[in-house]
C-alpha cells in the first residue's frame, strides 16, 4: 500500500535539496562577489599609513584615523549608555514586572521601536539632542556654538540600539529554564539573588550575542549620524565629547562622493577597514562569550 508513492517522494526530496542548495549558494556567491570587488578595489590602498593618517585632498595621502577613532568612540559611548538601561529594562520586564498586562504593553512598544528606520532616530537626535545641547551651551555661556557634537552622536546611537538590546536580552532571559529558577527559589534565595546568580549567568552568552549585534548596527549607521553632525573631513581626533566628530561609514560616504577617481580606491580601503573593525570587535565579544560559556558549563 505504501510503496507506490516512494519514488515520487524521493524525487521531490532530492529536487528540494538541490533547489535549497542553489539558493544558499547564491547568497554566498553574491556575498563573495561584493567582498571580492571591494577587496580588489581597495586592498592596494590599505596600509599602516592609511590607518594612521588624517584625511587629505590628495587621495593617496588620505587616512582614516579620525573616523576610526570616532567610530570606536561612538560604539563605546553608546554601549556605556544603552547597555545598563537596556539590560535593566529587559530584566525588569522579564523577571520583576508585577503586572503582566503593563509589562506586555511596554514590551510591545519597545519591540515596535526596534523596527523603526534609523533615519527616524537621526531626525529625533537632530531635533532633540542637538538643539538641547546647543541650548545648554548657550545658557552656560560656553564657547561652544553647536549641538552637533560627539555626545549627540553617542546619545542618538544609544536610543537607536536600546530596543535591540532590550529585545535580544529579553529573548535570552526567556531561554532560561523555569526549573532552574524554581530550584533556586526553593532553596530560599530571593528573586534578586536568583536573577543575578542564576538567570543572568545562564542567559549571559545569549545576551552577549545581542551586544555583538548592537555593535555591528552602530558601526554601520550612516544617515542618523550625518544628521547629528558627523562631518566628512576632520583633521583631529574626535575624543572631545563636545567637539566635532566623524565615523567610518560617513567618511567612506564622503570619499565616494568626491569627483577624483583616486578616492574610489580610498573608499574601498575604508570599507575594508570598517569590515576589519567590525570583525575585530565582534571577535572580542565572541571570544569573551566562549570563555564565559566554558566557565558556566
Amino acid at each position, binding site marked *: 500500500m505504501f510503496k507506490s508513492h516512494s519514488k515520487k517522494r524521493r524525487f521531490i526530496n532530492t529536487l528540494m535539496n538541490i533547489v535549497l542548495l542553489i539558493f544558499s549558494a547564491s547568497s554566498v556567491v553574491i556575498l563573495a562577489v561584493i567582498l571580492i570587488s571591494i577587496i580588489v578595489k581597495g586592498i592596494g590602498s590599505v596600509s599602516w599609513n592609511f590607518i594612521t593618517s588624517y584625511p587629505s585632498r590628495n587621495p593617496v595621502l588620505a587616512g582614516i584615523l579620525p573616523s576610526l577613532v570616532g567610530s570606536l568612540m561612538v560604539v563605546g559611548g553608546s554601549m556605556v549608555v544603552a547597555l545598563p538601561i537596556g539590560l535593566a529594562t529587559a530584566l525588569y520586564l522579564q523577571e520583576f514586572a508585577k503586572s*503582566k498586562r503593563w509589562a506586555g504593553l511596554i514590551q510591545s512598544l519597545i519591540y515596535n521601536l526596534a523596527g523603526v528606520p534609523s533615519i527616524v532616530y537621526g531626525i529625533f537626535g537632530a531635533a532633540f539632542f542637538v538643539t538641547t545641547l546647543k541650548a545648554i551651551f548657550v545658557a552656560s555661556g560656553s564657547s561652544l556654538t553647536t549641538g552637533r557634537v560627539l555626545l549627540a552622536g553617542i546619545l542618538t546611537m544609544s536610543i537607536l540600539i536600546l530596543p535591540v538590546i532590550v529585545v535580544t536580552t529579553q529573548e535570552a532571559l526567556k531561554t532560561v*529554564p523555569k*526549573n*532552574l529558577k*524554581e*530550584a*533556586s*527559589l*526553593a*532553596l*530560599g*534565595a*530571593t528573586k534578586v*539573588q536568583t536573577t543575578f*546568580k*542564576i538567570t543572568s*549567568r*545562564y542567559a549571559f552568552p545569549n545576551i552577549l550575542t545581542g551586544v555583538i549585534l548592537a555593535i555591528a548596527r552602530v558601526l554601520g549607521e550612516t544617515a542618523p549620524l550625518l544628521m547629528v553632525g558627523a562631518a566628512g573631513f576632520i583633521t583631529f581626533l574626535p575624543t572631545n565629547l563636545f567637539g566635532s566628530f566623524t565615523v567610518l561609514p560617513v567618511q567612506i560616504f564622503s570619499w565616494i562622493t568626491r569627483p577624483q577617481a583616486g578616492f574610489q580606491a580610498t573608499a574601498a580601503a575604508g570599507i575594508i577597514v570598517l569590515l576589519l573593525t567590525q570583525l575585530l570587535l565582534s571577535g572580542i565579544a565572541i571570544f569573551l562569550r566562549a570563555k564565559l560559556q566554558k566557565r*558556566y*558549563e
Partner: protein
Amino acid sequence: MDEFVYEVSNLNLFYDQVQALKNVSMNIKKNQVTAFIGPSGCGKTSFLRILNRLSDLVEGCTINGTVKLLDEDIFSPSMDVFDLRRRVGMVFQKPNPFPMSIFENVAYGPRCHGIKDKAVLKQLVLESLKQAALYDEVKDRLNKSALELSGGQQQRLCIARALAMKPEVLLMDEPTSALDPIATAKIEELINTLKKNYTIVIVTHSMQQAARISDTTAFFLLGELIEMGPTKEFYATPSDPRSENYITGRFG
C-alpha cells in the same frame, strides 16, 4: 503537638476561578515518610507546593485556610518566606542542578543565606554530599560541572543541595519518575535513611513506590483528600471505596 510537623486545616486553593483544593485538612508526622498519591490533576502537587509557599509564584493563586509548620502559620506576615524555604527543602521531578561545579551547587543555598566562611561552606558541602550518599562517587571531582553527572547522581546532588540548608522537612515531587530502576532504588534507600533525621513528604505516581517507602499514605482525588492512614493498612484494607478502586487500578 510535638509529633506533627505540619498541621493543615480547611485548606482551599483557587487558581483564578478554578478550585484546585477543597477543604483539605491533615497532619504530617515528624520523622516519617508521608506519600501523596492520586490521579493526574488531583491536586497533590499543588498541595505540596503550598507547604513551602512555592505557590506564591503562581499568578492568580488564592489560598484560604491555615497551614502551620511547627505551630507557626506559614502565611502570617511574621513568617520569613526565605527562611521557610530553607527549613523546608524541595526536590523536583526532573533533576535540575545549576550549570556550575558540584561544589558550587551545594554551596549555593548557604551562600545565598549569607554564609561566606570558606571552611564552614566546605564542611557543609562535604556533610551534605555524604548524607545524600553521593560523596564517594564525586569526591575527586567536586570542581567539575554538575551537568556531567548521571541522572541518578544529579538527583542525589539536588537532595544534597537541599540538605545543605539543614532543613526540617524535605518535599519531593516525583523524585524518581525520570530515573532508571537502579537509580530509583538508590534514592528510595536514601529516603529510608534520611527519614531518621528529616520529615519527608513525597508525591508519587507510582503506587508501588508509595507502598514500599512510606509510613503514611494520603489519597487525593479531584482536589479532595479522600483518605489518609498508615500505609500498611491503607494498601491491605482501605476504608473508602474510591481509594480501593484507585489502588486496585479499577479506575481510569
